């Protein structure tokens, strides 16, 4: 740690120079006397200082938070030498606001004394919050010298996207082999009644439909559809994003994807994730709370990585994107490479729903309000609507503005129902 003079020395020296010049010019001793306190102050400022020593520890109130929750940061400082004036500044990372207290503090401690300092941060958007450790500045007498260092103490806090539980989820057209909550179109053991057929040897008595038997004059049994789970793959478009920090279309997409992931996992489905952007990343389909944690950890790291390279979803292994899976894609549909990718998926008869996150609201948030902006927004809305009408000939598109509950947007989904029973 090295000491360096501060700007205050220049101020003192300037005044001394003026006083000396004026004193010589006017031949008045008073002006020379004026310089004496200034020179003494400068001399005091350069007084020798012992090497400072201290311990600084930091405690965080949580390692995982949800957007808009508060994080309490507490520092404990213990001096091992006299610290006449020590300054701490914990820089605030982006998307973090100071809610209570100060992230900048001054202390004066004697050898062995201890001080505590805390403040609260509000994390306004999902991300991996990294606190690098405070900048430390030691001040010499009168602030004429200072020494700086950085207390390297990195800490990471995961800020997860905020989402509400969804009541209605898009039903997958195809189910898997494990028990779940979706009614399978296949016949088998289950509680969902299906067709009625004549009794054949081997049928269980409890499946006999007595009402139909009496009406038709012969034993008839009720067939059932088994409840099975489904594979759901969420694709998030990270090729482009618009909007203010923390409220971009990508943030909205991440919130939507997190809500769907939590909803499907709660229904015992297997959920996977694909990040389609400058980097093609994925999470294998899985189920349970650990999978939700994996998905959320991946979602909070999602960011736009610019690239000219077009990624092909054919590169994704089949175990990551199973052909029987329900694929839900979140995208502002601003990049035609993503439109092509989902069109290719739909052409492969993949059960696909595209949630088109509207970029108009987030864009308007960063554009100063004006009549021209209003007209432009209306034209853009009409243009997108016309384009979606064309795309709907092959794609299931759900428009979502990122603000209204995702349930409402998904409820407006229209697609042809597939036959519930497999042909005999």
């Amino acid at each position, binding site marked *: 740690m090295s000491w360096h003079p501060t700007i205050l020395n220049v101020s*003192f020296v300037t005044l001394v120079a*003026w006083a000396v010049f004026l004193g010589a010019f006017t031949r008045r001793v008073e002006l020379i006397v004026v310089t004496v306190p200034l*020179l003494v102050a*400068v001399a005091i*400022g350069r007084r020798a200082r012992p090497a400072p020593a201290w311990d600084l520890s930091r405690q965080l109130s949580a390692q995982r938070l949800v957007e808009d929750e508060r994080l309490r940061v507490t520092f404990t400082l213990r001096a091992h030498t006299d610290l006449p004036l020590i300054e701490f*500044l914990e820089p605030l990372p982006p998307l973090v606001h100071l809610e209570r207290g100060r992230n900048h503090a001054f202390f004066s401690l004697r050898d062995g004394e201890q001080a505590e300092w805390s403040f609260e941060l509000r994390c306004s958007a999902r991300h991996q919050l990294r606190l690098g450790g405070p900048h430390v500045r030691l001040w010499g007498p009168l602030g004429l010298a200072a020494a700086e260092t950085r207390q390297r103490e990195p800490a990471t806090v995961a800020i997860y996207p905020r989402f509400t539980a969804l009541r209605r989820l898009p039903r997958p057209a195809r189910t898997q082999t494990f028990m779940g909550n979706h009614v399978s179109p296949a016949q088998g053991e289950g509680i969902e009644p299906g067709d009625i057929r004549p009794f054949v040897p081997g049928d269980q008595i409890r499946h006999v439909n007595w009402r139909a038997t009496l009406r038709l004059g012969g034993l008839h049994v009720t067939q059932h559809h088994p409840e099975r789970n489904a594979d759901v793959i969420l694709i998030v478009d990270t090729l482009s994003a618009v909007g203010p920090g923390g409220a971009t279309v990508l943030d909205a997409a991440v919130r939507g994807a997190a809500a769907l992931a939590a909803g499907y996992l709660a229904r015992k489905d297997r959920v996977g994730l694909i990040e389609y952007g400058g980097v093609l990343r994925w999470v294998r389909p899985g189920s349970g709370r650990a999978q939700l944690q994996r998905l959320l950890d991946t979602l909070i790291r999602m960011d736009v990585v610019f690239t000219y390279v077009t990624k092909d979803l054919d590169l994704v292994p089949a175990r990551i994107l199973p052909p029987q899976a329900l694929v839900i894609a979140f995208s502002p549909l601003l990049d035609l490479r993503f439109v092509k990718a989902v069109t290719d998926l739909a052409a492969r008869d993949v059960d696909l729903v595209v949630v088109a996150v509207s970029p108009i609201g987030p864009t308007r948030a960063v554009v100063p309000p004006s009549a021209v902006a209003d007209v432009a927004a209306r034209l853009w809305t009409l243009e997108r609507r016309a384009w979606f009408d064309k795309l709907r000939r092959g794609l299931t598109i759900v428009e979502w503005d990122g603000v209204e509950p995702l349930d409402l947007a998904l409820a407006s989904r229209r697609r042809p129902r597939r036959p519930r029973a497999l042909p005999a």
Partner: protein
Amino acid sequence: MTRLGAFALLLVVIALPLTVLPSPQLCWLLVPAFLVGGLGVVALSAPVTTAGAAVALIAYAVALLIERPPPDLVVATLLGSALVLLLTVVHFARRVHGAAVSPAALRSEIREWSMAVAAGVLAVGVLTIAGTALRLLLPDAAAALVIVGALGALMAVVGVTAFVSIEND
């Protein structure tokens, strides 16, 4: 609070030349000094405050030049001490602006300021005694002493500048 203290010190710096020459003409220099210095205090800028203080120093020199009073070291010491405190307080206020300051830190700073002022006053006293003794030994050498003193102070400035520009580990 620190701004109020700095304003009080600025008023002292502005008022001291008026004790030498209470003339409206001097206000032509002191009003700009107050405005510039006040701007420095409001903006918590030590360089701007220094500019205002320099103008006040010029006003003090003009007052001495016009009035030619007998040497008054008390006013000069007061002015020097007020300048030290003014710049230090403004600089401190800028550093702690928006920060949490522990009461111990504030007490420590006030103690430092008091010590600096006391040391300055003590130095003036010692130099005055030394100067008086020298004058008794060497009569009719007042002008020469001023010039030698000025040169000495100038050398001290150069020395201090060189001293503070060397970093020590």
